[in-house]
């Protein structure tokens, strides 16, 4: 386990904060770490910056992430990793589709030629949309107070997916599945970053598995071909106990 000082902090939205730190590990976009919040739990977090300066972008969701998001500059975060397989790079115009805190793992992919579809419930929760070129930024809010009113799929109607050399998608699994279904028969390349609950992060505990693939080591990034045969994708998962439930 490593203990690393938070050098810089930015409150991105009312429920999301980014913690910046220096860590000499080599990390690629799409990879994640396990962050320990002593006394509360250990949570997987994508790296939202992967250069010399690293960053995690935390949505205060439950107890652990709630406490983690309150970490202040000068305090230490305790982590292990990096884990998982990164996004495969692609030249040309790319499309990033992010729902909620899913934008965190997509952020390192943002560049001049990336178009973003950023979706959230409210305008305040739109994450990292300002990092896209103004003309390549499609904002979608459920309450419609900013950008398009609706969900991610509504945002996708604003573009032709086949115009992009690669589509990168991250967000809740139901959203991923919806996007997948929308583009699965089109002539597109796409990579999806899955978020399953994780206990070990190192391919042992089976809590993150989808049809025998461990999201923590075989993923979190999967391409369309891999997802095609995954009957569990978007349909069922195991609870902490291992009990199977519908998604």
């Amino acid at each position: 386990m490593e203990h690393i000082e938070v050098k810089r902090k930015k409150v991105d939205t009312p429920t999301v904060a980014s913690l910046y730190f220096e860590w000499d590990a080599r990390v690629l976009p799409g990879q994640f770490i396990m962050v320990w919040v002593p006394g509360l739990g250990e949570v997987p977090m994508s790296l939202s910056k992967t250069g010399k300066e690293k960053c995690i972008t935390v949505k205060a969701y439950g107890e652990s992430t709630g406490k983690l998001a309150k970490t202040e500059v000068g305090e230490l975060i305790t982590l292990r990793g990096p884990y998982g397989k990164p996004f495969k790079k692609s030249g040309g115009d790319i499309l990033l589709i992010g729902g909620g805190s899913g934008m965190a793992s997509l952020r390192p992919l943002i560049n001049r030629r990336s178009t973003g579809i950023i979706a959230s419930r409210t305008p305040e929760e739109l994450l990292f949309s300002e990092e896209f070129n103004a003309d390549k930024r499609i904002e979608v809010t459920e309450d419609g107070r900013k950008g398009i009113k609706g969900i991610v799929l509504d945002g996708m109607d604003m573009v032709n997916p086949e115009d992009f050399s690669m589509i990168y998608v991250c967000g809740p699994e139901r959203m991923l599945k919806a996007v997948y279904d929308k583009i699965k028969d089109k002539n597109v390349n796409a990579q999806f970053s899955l978020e399953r609950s994780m206990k070990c992060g190192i391919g042992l505990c089976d809590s993150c598995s989808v049809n025998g693939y461990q999201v923590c080591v075989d993923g979190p990034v999967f391409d369309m071909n891999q997802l095609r045969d995954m009957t569990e994708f978007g349909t069922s998962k195991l609870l902490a106990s291992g009990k199977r439930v519908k998604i």
Partner: protein
Amino acid sequence: MISLTTNTGGLKLESPAILASGILDENGYTMKRILDEGAGAVVTKSIGTEERNGYFSPVVAPEGSYLINAMGLPNPGIDFFRDEINIALKSGKPIIGSIFASNTDDFLKLALKMQDYGVSAVELNLSCPHVQGFGSEVGSDPVLVKDIVKNLKGTLKIPVWSKLSPNVTSISEIARASSESDALVLINTVRAMAIDVESKRPVLTNVYGGLSGKAIKPVGLRCVYEARKECDIDIIGVGGIYNYRDALEYIMAGASAFQIGTALMEYGRKVFGDIAMDLESYLKKNNVANIKELVGVAVQ
């Protein structure tokens, strides 16, 4: 014809490399994949009578050459596990149902359900070192162990394997107590812990956990060797097996098959196929027709 085929613990295995209980065996699809990718059999996660979430994270503390875990026996409860076994059974290879309980009646109930679900054998977890009232607390009492094994053997149609703990003063004594089993599975993890110096607290939420991986291979070998000398019963070796040489050490110490867990942290699921392939090459190179011929050859 070189062969890795083994008859052990009442089962016929195409390969002696078995997935150990508790690693990638909660989800039926995962078990099926591991069998399809080359394991000779899989042992399921240990299943109890009731649903348990296990401990809050951190539940693992990985280090270079070992791992400490305290999952806390998470499991959906036996009734909800039927579906997972059904999925796994599609592989056509043997599934061994691991079960844990604190008394003979519950063990029997669980074993009968497992048998009903179609598993090829049951493995009694008499050895988990970090959950009160279960595992090694049961497995360190020779009288209770004898009673459980006897009752199960008297009732079940499928073989009964007993998985024992190294955390006892005398492994020979417990081996003797469980010698009516069809096989002994040695060893479960060694009771252990880790402290995080920075936050000045134990790393695992449960404080105590079980040590596995490279670090425990010498302990596992010793237990297999001791049990081999104590009683004439099939032994399945487990603990720190990462490659075919580790497996051969266990085989030469007296194990007729072996299980792999923590090595998946280093090599992933392909470890089963890789080890089987390497064992085959070894047999070829050394002119050994069947791996069985090597069982116990180092015992003096």
